[in-house]
């Protein structure tokens, strides 16, 4: 094999690997990317039951209800216009409180309930889930970055 040929072969191999990786990535992305929904988006776009989605919004005041088993919690997420009922089994994050922002990963069931596998709450007073930044809700959702900036 001549030097030129070897270089060409390597280049072709690299290209094949890259294209392969790209194809694999696109294939997996189409299947697995989690689309972000607010309760209004769910009303509008009606995602298919069973598809993995991410829901974000505010926990409605007075909506958190603990089930008899002690580990399941039901609550309502709203974004000012629409509402979505959510069920979660597990330990809720430390900052999961009524009137605060929450992001939930999970699926819609056929009867319209959102079953969450994972809950993310506001990390601290300076943190808002990125997806919630655009949503104007209550005063405590605006960024209160006091001294740093």
């Amino acid at each position, binding site marked *: 094999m001549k030097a030129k040929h070897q270089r060409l072969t*390597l280049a072709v191999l690299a290209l094949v690997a890259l294209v392969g990786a790209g194809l694999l990535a696109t294939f997996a992305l189409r299947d697995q*990317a989690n689309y972000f929904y607010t309760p209004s988006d769910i009303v509008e776009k009606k995602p298919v039951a069973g598809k993995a989605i991410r829901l974000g919004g505010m926990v409605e005041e007075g909506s958190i209800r603990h089930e008899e088993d002690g580990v399941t919690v039901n609550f309502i997420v709203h974004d000012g216009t629409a509402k979505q009922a959510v069920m979660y089994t597990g330990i809720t994050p430390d900052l999961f409180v009524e009137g605060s922002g929450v992001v939930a990963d999970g699926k819609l069931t056929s009867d319209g309930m959102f079953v969450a596998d994972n809950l993310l709450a506001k990390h601290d007073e300076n943190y808002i889930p*990125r997806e919630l930044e655009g949503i104007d809700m209550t005063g405590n959702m605006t960024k209160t970055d006091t*001294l740093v900036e």
Partner: protein
Amino acid sequence: MIAETGLIALWLAASMALLQFALCAIGLAKGQDELFKAIRPVAIAQGVLVAISFLVLVWLFVRSDMSVKLVVANSVAIKPMLYKISGAWGNHEGSMLLWIAIMGVAGACIGIFERNLKAKTLVATLGAQAFISIGFYAYLLIASNPFERIFPVPADGQGLNPLLQDVGLALHPPTLYIGYVGLSIAFSFAVGAMITRDVGPEFAKAMRPWVLGAWVFLTLGITAGSYWAYYELGWGGWWFWDPVENASLMPWLAATALLHSVTVLATRDGLRAWTLMLAVVAFSMSMIGTFLVRSGVLTSVHAFAVDPERGSFILALLAIYIGGAMALFALRVGSVKEGSQFEPISREGALVANNLLLSAILGIVFIGTLYPLFVEGMSDEMISVGAPYFNLATGPIALILVAIMAAGPLLRWRRDSAKALLNRISIPVFLTAAALFALVLFTTSMSVLPLIGMALAAGIAVASFAPLWKRNLRRTPMHTYGMIIAHFGIAVALVGMASETSFTEEKLVAAKPGDEIMVNDWKIKFHAIEPVAGPNWTALEARVTAQYGDEAIHEIAPQNRMFASAQMQTSEAALLTRWNGQLYVVLGDSDEQGRWQLRIWWKPFVTLIWYGGVLIALGGLLAMIGRLRRAGRQKKQRAYAEAMI
């Protein structure tokens, strides 16, 4: 005045970097060798000055100097000393100062230790290193001065994100940063070599120890970060494919590819252009990682500041450095002569496969990490890409990669035969097949990837020692042992990952004091909840005892901590480690009936994941020391031979 001293040192260091770059540019342009002699001392001076600046910042945090804005925002007087020190880099400005300090010290290290590189290439390398530094100095001095004063002086500071108050934080960022920034040396070497058109085995041998060193730190940093996330976040996972984790994984993948390709260049004078490319890509990934993490484009614990101006500044730096290096590469790649030839079935062939597969994984992680930003930029849609994507897309490639890893070291350089390879690798192949058979037969809960991973690990564990077959163990070079240990570490980590994924048992209960819970062979008894207090927190602590089979009873105490300064809670998981796994208990909330939520995991062999990571790093360290010692010996021999003539 202390803060001003730090700022002055930083300005002086920045001017040294300018001088260093000017010396290099003028020297190379005019061909004046006298200027070259000055460049080492200047690089060392820059390193010393920037190190002083960083130490001053640490000192301000130690003394809780509340006249400095950064200390006020990120520290409190009552914090334990260790976290005061680590608080110096647990924030945006401080972490950028740490970055540039490591970069300066790395430049000084090149100035002091690098003796194998040709004079001209060394000068070009130090010039490139200075050029990168200048941008980051400008960034610190213009956009994020860490020494800014505050007036009026407040009585006390505002604390530090309690999640970051942890031993892990004290060690994880500096380790990772040394790795990130260490790759800048490889980058500068590559730029230097492209400028002087001096690419060959000598260059590769000079670059290799630096790459290995950076890679060891990256490996340790990622391992430590994974363990930190595992026990501190209380979610029981060890890798979340969080963009921030990916930001550290991408440079590691590139550096891993680089340290394999640099060996081809050093030993066989092959893959010249490709090695240069990888050196550029590796540090580019470090910078992209820093940009992703620090700019606030992604929100997480790591994003200290959300400030578009800073984000654009780092983005501009990225564009200049990466774009510049790529342009230089495109200009010079034609004149880099191709190295020697090899057959597809050969050591080089296996290393090329290693490089291609690592690059493919890198590409997939890169796409998955940046795709959400891209989609958001193009449309109003918001998406997030999570673990299912990454596992699905990278898992199969990673398994092919580790399979090739078992075979690679058993191949000869230049050309080998498939038959001979099969002969040498028959025992590991047999072991893998046997393990696969046994796992399919005796386990029920394993999905495909962990199943194949576990089976492969059995074969790799043996295959990694095969290079020692029929060799004199005492005369086998140290770097070969390094490779063996690193490859064995991959097998160890693989077992841990597969086992954790497949055999973890989890229970979520609401328990009253006195309740007993069985998880696997563990008998766990919940006794009581008691309040406890630490230096700057109070906590509710669960008294829990755990007994494995008939063994001794252990006491564990998961907590929910409240931090006074930040008004936030964190949960501290309790871990109980046995040789065959870890028990992981998290305390949740209470309800009206006096029950407390407990989440309990039994994770068989989960610790192997991090032991594996440490072994991989240890292997890299041995390889580095072995290479350095050999280079030293060869130099002595040459000097001796010359003296004899």
